[in-house]
């Protein structure tokens, strides 16, 4: 290893100085709490009166005794498995359609983006009304076609599909990303494809899709992480925030919240958060490993 010159050292110091705000923030507000959670997961910490080391007991209890842990993991996995591909496909579909050069396209882009601007509890309340079994708009429209709609949020078989449908509606955020990328695809690629005799589908399959794979990759990773952390929807849209009916909306984070703030079992909740962290980490690593097989970077493999 070559010894660094004085100048290099000085530059490195300045570099550290300029990133110091981030580093300090990261250590204090991210890494610190994460480390604390890791330590806390081996204790019976309850926030106020105790913090005794109990070894792997929290994890043992979680895997062997706590049925709701498995139920909540199942619910969350179910949601993620359907939500991630569906929202990705839907937002690509939307972006491609809205990428046509037609009069009034801006208007439609705005309309489809609007749900992404609206957010939080107001949207959930709105959807609770839309999904109301007898008076809701969705079942009313279904009844025009002589379809008896399900009771959505009151029927455990339909609660998760209802939530996924709601998520599809607000796919506008991801759509915007795809739209921006689509507009960056060089037109000469399409021109040469056309000269080579490629039809619309072939152009999409062999030009558009490869060119937007980096964004698909990014979207899949972030929405997988986001889906695993689903909480608010279930907390707001079920009675008393319990995740009913029949615990069908008891998602991982809701169960964790119950353990932490209903049962004051913070050590256990911390252990749960560590398990979630590992799950998400492993999934992301798998994604990263698989990426080179299908993600195409225009500038080469860098």
């Amino acid at each position, binding site marked *: 290893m070559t010894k660094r010159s004085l100048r290099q050292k000085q530059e490195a110091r300045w570099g550290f100085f300029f990133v110091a705000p981030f580093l300090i923030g990261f250590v204090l507000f991210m890494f610190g709490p994460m480390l604390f959670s890791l330590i806390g997961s081996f204790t019976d910490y309850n926030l106020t009166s105790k913090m005794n080391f109990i070894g792997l007991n929290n994890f043992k209890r979680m895997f062997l005794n706590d049925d709701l842990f498995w139920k909540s993991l199942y619910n969350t996995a179910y949601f993620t498995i359907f939500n991630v591909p569906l929202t990705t496909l839907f937002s690509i579909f939307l972006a491609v359609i809205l990428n046509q050069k037609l009069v009034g396209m801006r208007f439609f882009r705005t309309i489809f983006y609007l749900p992404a601007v609206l957010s939080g509890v107001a949207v959930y309340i709105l959807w609770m009304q839309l999904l109301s079994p007898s008076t809701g708009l969705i079942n009313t429209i279904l009844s025009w076609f002589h379809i008896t709609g399900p009771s959505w949020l009151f029927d455990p078989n339909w609660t998760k599909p209802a939530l996924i449908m709601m998520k599809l509606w607000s796919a506008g955020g991801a759509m915007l990303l795809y739209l921006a990328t689509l507009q960056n695809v060089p037109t000469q690629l399409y021109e040469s494809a056309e000269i080579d005799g490629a039809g619309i589908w072939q152009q999409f399959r062999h030009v558009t899709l490869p060119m937007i794979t980096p964004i698909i990759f990014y979207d899949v990773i972030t929405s997988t992480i986001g889906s695993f952390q689903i909480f608010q929807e279930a907390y707001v849209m079920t009675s008393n925030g319990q995740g009913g009916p029949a615990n069908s909306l008891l998602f991982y984070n809701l169960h964790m919240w119950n353990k932490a*703030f209903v049962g004051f079992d913070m050590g256990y909740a911390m252990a749960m958060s560590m398990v979630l962290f590992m799950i998400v980490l492993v999934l992301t690593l798998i994604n990263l490993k698989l990426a080179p097989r299908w993600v195409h970077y225009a500038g080469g493999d860098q």
Partner: protein
Amino acid sequence: MKKVGLILTAVLACLVLLGGCGKKTADADKDTTTNVKSSKKVTLDFWSFWGSGARREVIESIIKDYNESQDKVKIKYSYQPWGDIWTKSLSAITAGNPPDVIVQDINSVAQRADAKQATDITKYLDKGINKRFYSQLFKTTQYQNKTYGLPFNTDTQVIFYNKKIFKNAGLTDKDLPQTWSELDAVARTLDIKKDDTFTRIGFYPLWSLDTQVWALNADGGTSWFNDKNQVKIDTKNKRKALQWILDAQKYYGKKTINRLEAEFGSGVADPFLSGTVAMRAQNINYYTSIKENAPKDFEFGVIQLPEFQKGSGHKTWGGGFTLEVPTGAKHVKESVDFIKYLTSDKVQEKFGAASFDIMANKKANTNLINGKQLDETGQMIYKTADQAMSSTVLTPIPLSAPDYNNLVNEQIDAALLGQKSAKQALKDAQTAVENLVKQHK
């Protein structure tokens, strides 16, 4: 290079100092407040979730009275939204900077006492202060024979009935149902069914009331846990209660029930006020909604929950709120003085008259029944409430399984969805909750 090193050290030092300084000033503030205490006024931070309407107005007026009545203590009122107040106070307690007095949930006092989140205030209380309150309310504030707060207000579950519908059906006061079977019989006479659709519902038990309430009514006042914290979910009478609910569900049909359930959510379309539902079990506070939304000529009455069987008692369920001093609060004595004031007869009466809450102080309720502050209907409501309080059961959170609710609800939902029999559902719930208790041992 030296320069950079110096700058870096300087920045770091500043950061450390800033952190330190922040703490110091905070400490200094605390010091001054304690100093002020001996000579001047103490300011107490009082947290509640009464953010608007009658409750906010009356509590502010009560605080104003208190601030003017003496010159040692000044109460500062802090409104905290319902969804945040308790998680926020929990982090404030953990950070060592809690409010002085807080309105808390009555059924979890022991849980907080056990986790050292609340202060034992026994030594500041006069002997016999418990006589102010309904005994079951005061009992919830006890943990290992010490007092961790005083009850403030409460509620109870009763049945509201539409007087006109009763009259038109030829039913008199004598026919008001006293037992479950009488309730069923009266409901059947009030039902109206046209071409397979119910246009009027006599009575369906689960609108606004949990299965738990009917279960404890059937089981002589024992809820999912008994006094000794034993799990009592799968009992003979509770099976009968759940079966009774399933029968009612089958009789009216899920479709009818879902349709009306959605309508109960919104004030004006309330099926009870429109006469589609003849009797409705509800929290007694429902009275305020009737006052606001009912048509002018609407006449209603209130009765206690009927007995499961003749002589088994009109057992019903109640909740409410307590006033507590969180752990780490600096002026416990002054805070308790304020709590005593808030639970005293006159103040309780004032709060009740404005908010229509059933107060924890017995005498305040009696005064409201006999006094001139309420109209006749109001007095009738308080009279029924006072009666119902004698058979109202509170269900303190069991320390051995504080988060048992999801386990029980899952099984009851399964029964209501037709996936399990009443017997099987309660059996499974019993096993699941016993398993949770075991995990906490």
